[in-house]
């Protein structure tokens, strides 16, 4: 699986793609390490854009929980957005929707946390053409 990221003011948007199972969870954890460091330093927000995640196992959810603990310990925050229906059900069944903020879109997640990041995010979106 691959993970890219974008930064909007004090918000980092992490974009993992693929399946997060007990083998690939380690790759996600490795990819997140520098993003966590930055978010902790900035006391910022790490938002996961899960639009490209087809499945997440318990090992992947554990990575999210570990990330949440590390961020919260430093005064930083975490949110998850854009869950596909199957992944949303996995979140509900595992009760992760009760311990992590889950948003319908990345924009709504950013709006919750940071006006500056929201302005940067909106400015970065392609302008609609007629």
């Amino acid at each position, binding site marked *: 699986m691959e993970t890219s990221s974008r930064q909007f003011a004090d918000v980092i948007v992490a974009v993992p793609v693929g399946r997060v199972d*007990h*083998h690939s*969870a*380690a790759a996600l954890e490795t990819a997140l390490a520098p993003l966590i460091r930055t978010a902790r330093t900035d006391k910022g927000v790490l938002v996961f854009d899960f639009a490209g995640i087809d*499945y997440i*196992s*318990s*090992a992947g*959810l*554990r990575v999210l*929980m570990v990330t949440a*603990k590390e961020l919260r310990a430093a005064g930083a925050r975490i949110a998850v957005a854009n869950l596909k229906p*199957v992944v949303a*059900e*996995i979140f*509900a*069944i*595992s*009760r*992760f929707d*009760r*311990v992590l903020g889950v948003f319908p879109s990345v924009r709504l997640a950013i709006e919750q946390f940071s006006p500056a990041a929201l302005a940067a995010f909106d400015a970065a979106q392609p302008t609609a053409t007629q």
Partner: protein
Amino acid sequence: MKRIRFWGTRGSLPVALTASAVRKKIVMALRGASGKTFATDADAERYVEGLAFADAGTYGGHTSCVELETGGPEYVICDLGSGLRPFGNAALARHGPASPQTYHIFVSHVHWDHIMGLPFFAPAYIPGNRIFIYGSHSWLESALRRQQDAPSFPVDFSFLKADIQFQYLEPDQRHTVAGLSVTTMLQRHAGDSYGYRFEANGRSVIYTTDSEHKLDDPMETESYAAFFRGADVVIFDAMYSLADAVSVRADWGHSSNVVGVELCQLAGAKHLCLFHHEPSHSDQAIDAVLADTRRLEEITRTGQPLAISAAYDGMEIEL
């Protein structure tokens, strides 16, 4: 092996239905019966059959005790929780006190809820009965004797007049007991616990309770999948939600329904039986966990369907 019979399915502590919980079940049943008439008991039975399990029954409250019916004359039991008491009474009712029996009892670990039934196991007091207690803890015998020491209990272990023998099982080795192939596996739990794999006549049952899965090591996941490989039934500690198991209840030594589904899918097991229910969970809560678990299996299925059940005191699974 012919069948599995559950005598105790609750984790940590025995619990009992409260008056208000019984009343709630009656109210639900009466509301469902509105406008219906029942000319015979059979009519009423058919109506009750259609009710949700949480409204018509209960998961029960005894702690861990599971019987494996082998088809042979000797009894095989997993754990000595409070469910051992009704099991012992049923065995005595079946054979009478004058007919000596042999009991093989496999112990996952010696935490209180898994041993508290022994002082109330009536066959243990009857000379002539033979009781073999197996486990992979060096302190198994001392722990069972100690729980009956004064001032914790009024009847000393020495009053148990059956022939009681303790037998150490080397982990990861195959042992043969009562016609069963038995293998134990070390599990993560305070003081260690051991899971059991029982095999006979082409059937296999896994008894894995009080086992935490840290989920950070793919090799560990694979080793559990190998232990569960192709099992007909996996009796699995599903005490907590996954979110609780990896956060507020991390290192408490228990697992979740989500991990149970994943390991059974990896192992190609046929039936996952949720076990060691959280004592604070109502029947409705366990019903909801069961429904969630079945849905998870459905949306993540990649191979053969995995049957899912939630164990209750008195439940039987045919093998």
